[in-house]
C-alpha cells in the first residue's frame, strides 16, 4: 500500500503557479528522490505535506487519511517528520533540547501536568535517553549540551535529521540534507539515511540537488519542472529520460 499519495495538488501564490496538478505515490519502505531545477516546487510540495501551505486544489493522502483534514500540529503525531532546507532549529536550545523538542509528539505532559509536575520526571528521563541515543548515532553526542546557535552548518544539518528522527516517524521528509556538506560528509549522509531507513523501517522522501547522491540511494525518483512532474521511475530510467535531460541541460534549438 502507498504510504503517501499526492493527487493533483496545485498551489498558487498570486500569479505564480508553484505546483500544477502534481501527482505521485510513495510505497512503504521506499526512498523516493524528488529532483528538479530550482523553483520546480519541491520545497512547496514539502510544505503542503507538513501543512504549512494550503493547496488550492488536490488531495494528499497519508496511509489513506486526507492530510488536509489534519491541523499543522497534528502531522507529527501521525508519524510524519521533516527537516528544513535552510535550517529551522531552535537556536537558544542545546542540541539535546532541540532533539527532545523533536520528540514532542511522543510525549503527553501538557500544561496542567507540567505546572503540577505530575509525570514530568519520568517523561524527561525517557526523552533525554532517547534523544541521546539519536545524537550519538549521528555523531553529535559530544556536542549535546552546546546551544545550536553558532555551530557549523554541517553539524546543524545533521541536527535537523536527529530532531526529525526523535519524533519516531514512519515517513521522513528530507529537504536538501546534503546542501553545504563536503564530499565525504555526503557519502556518510547517504549511509546514514540508508541505515536509519532499514533500522526504523522508514519511508523517505528526499529533495536533493546532489545528483550522484539521489541516484545512488533512491529506489524511485520523481523529476519536476515548473510545478509539474516530468518523469518518474527508477534512477536509471529518470536519468535517461529526454524530458529530464532537457530540463537540466536545455534543449537543442
Amino acid at each position, binding site marked *: 500500500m502507498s504510504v503517501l499519495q499526492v493527487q493533483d495538488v496545485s498551489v498558487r501564490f498570486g500569479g505564480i503557479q508553484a505546483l500544477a496538478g502534481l501527482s505521485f505515490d510513495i510505497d512503504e519502505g521506499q526512498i523516493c528522490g524528488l529532483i528538479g531545477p530550482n523553483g520546480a516546487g519541491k520545497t512547496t510540495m514539502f510544505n503542503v505535506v507538513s501543512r504549512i501551505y494550503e493547496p488550492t486544489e488536490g488531495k494528499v493522502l497519508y496511509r489513506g487519511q486526507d492530510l488536509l483534514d489534519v491541523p499543522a*500540529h497534528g*502531522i*507529527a503525531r501521525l508519524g510524519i517528520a521533516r527537516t528544513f532546507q535552510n535550517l*529551522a532549529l531552535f537556536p*537558544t536550545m542545546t542540541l539535546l533540547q532541540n532533539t527532545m*523538542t523533536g520528540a*514532542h509528539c511522543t510525549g503527553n*505532559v501538557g500544561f496542567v501536568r507540567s505546572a503540577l509536575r505530575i509525570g514530568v520526571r519520568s517523561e524527561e528521563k525517557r526523552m*533525554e535517553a532517547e534523544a541521546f541515543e539519536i545524537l550519538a548515532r549521528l555523531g553529535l553526542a559530544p556536542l549535546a549540551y552546546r546551544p545550536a546557535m553558532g555551530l557549523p552548518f554541517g553539524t546543524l544539518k545533521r541536527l535537523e535529521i536527529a530532531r526529525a528522527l526523535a519524533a519516531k516517524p514512519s515517513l521522513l521528509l528530507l529537504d536538501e540534507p546534503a546542501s553545504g556538506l563536503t564530499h565525504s560528509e555526503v557519502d556518510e549522509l547517504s549511509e546514514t539515511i540508508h541505515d536509519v531507513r532499514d533500522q526504523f523501517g522508514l519511508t523517505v522522501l528526499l529533495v536533493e540537488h546532489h545528483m550522484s547522491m539521489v541516484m545512488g540511494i533512491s529506489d524511485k525518483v520523481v523529476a519536476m519542472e515548473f510545478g509539474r512532474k516530468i518523469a518518474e521511475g527508477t534512477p536509471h530510467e529518470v536519468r535517461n529520460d529526454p524530458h529530464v535531460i532537457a530540463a537540466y541541460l536545455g534543449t537543442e534549438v
Partner: protein
Amino acid sequence: MAWPKDVRRGSAWHRVGQLVLFGLVALFFIRAGLTWNRSGIGQLTDMLLFATAAVGLNLLVGVTGQISLGHSAFFGLGAYTSAVLVGQYGWTPGWTFPVSIVLCFAVGMVVGLPALRLKGVYLALVSIALATTFTQLLNWDRLAWLTGGPIGIKGLSYLPPSWTPFDGRADLGKWFFWMSLVVFVICTLIASSMIRSRFGRSMVAVRDNETAAAVMGVNLAAVKTLVFGLSAAMAGIAGSIFAMKLTLVEPVVQFFTLFGSIFLLVMVVLGGAGSTWGPLVGAFIFVYVRDWASGVGEGNGVLGLFEGTRIGGLGGIVFGVLLIVIVFVAPFGAVGLLRKARAKVVRVLPRPPALPTVANAQEPQPPTTVVSG
C-alpha cells in the same frame, strides 16, 4: 587545584551548592520577616508581589517570546476583583483570591488571541491598548457603581484570620509579607517546573521558531493562549493581595496604569528574561535601586555635589541612567551576570546521560558559552 572547579550537575557537591544558595535566600526572607520594622517589611512585601507578577510575565515574554505591555491591566483586574467583592459585596477577603485567579486566567486567554496573529511590535501595540483601555474603564462614570469611578474603593481590610499565628492589626504587615512570600514561592515553583518539561520546551520552541515548533507537533494556539492565561493569573493574584495590603484601589495607582506594565517588563529584563531567578532579582533591583535613586537630589545630594539644593526629578534620571548601564553591562540580565561570575569559580558539568545501549557515546563536553535560561 586550578580554578574554575568542575562540579557535575546532580552530584553531592552540586546539591550542597544549591542548598546553600536556597538556604541563604530563605534565611534572608525569614530574618526579614521576623526582625524588620513595619515599613521595611511593607516594602519587601511590595517587592514580592511585583516579583510574582514578573514571574508570570517572564513566562510569557522571556520564555514564550510574546511581548505584553498589558500586564498592568491584569494586575489591576486582580486588585479590582478583590476590592469590588470585598468593598461592594461584603465578601470575606481571602475568598476573593481564587475568583481573581480564575477571572484573570480567562481574560488573559482571550487577550492572548491576538498573539495568534500578531508578532513583536504589533502585539506590543495591542497590549498597550489593553493597558490604557483598562484605566479608562476604571474612570468611566457608567461603571462607577462597580468600580467607584475615579474615587475608587477605599477602606478595605484583610485582618489575619484566627488560625494564623498573627495578632490582628498589630501584625498586619507580617501577615501580608508571609502571604506574599508563599504565593511568590508557589508561582516560582510552577514556572520552574514548567520550564523544565515538555510543555516548557514547546514554549521556548514557539519563541525560537514558530514554523518548526508546529512541525514538531506544538499546538501554537494552545501554548500561546494558555501561557497568556497563566501569566495573567499570576499578575492577578499579586494584584489582589496588593489591593488588600494597600487597603484601597483607585485608577491612579501607578501599577494599574501603563507605567505598571513597563515596570514589570523592566524587572523581567533587568533580572534576566527567561531565567527562573530573574523575576525575583529584577524586582529586587527595581524596588531598592529605585528607592535609593529617588533619594538622590532630594536631601544631601550626591557625594556632596548639589549640597543643600533640591533637584526635583533627578532621582528618576539617575534610575534611568542606571537601567541603561545595567542593560549594557548585562545583556542577559543580572542573573546572566551572576552566572558569568560563577563560571569563573565553579563550572557545572552536565549530568551524564542515562544510557543503557549506546556504546560509542563520547563524554559530552561542557558548554563553553553562557546562555540565559
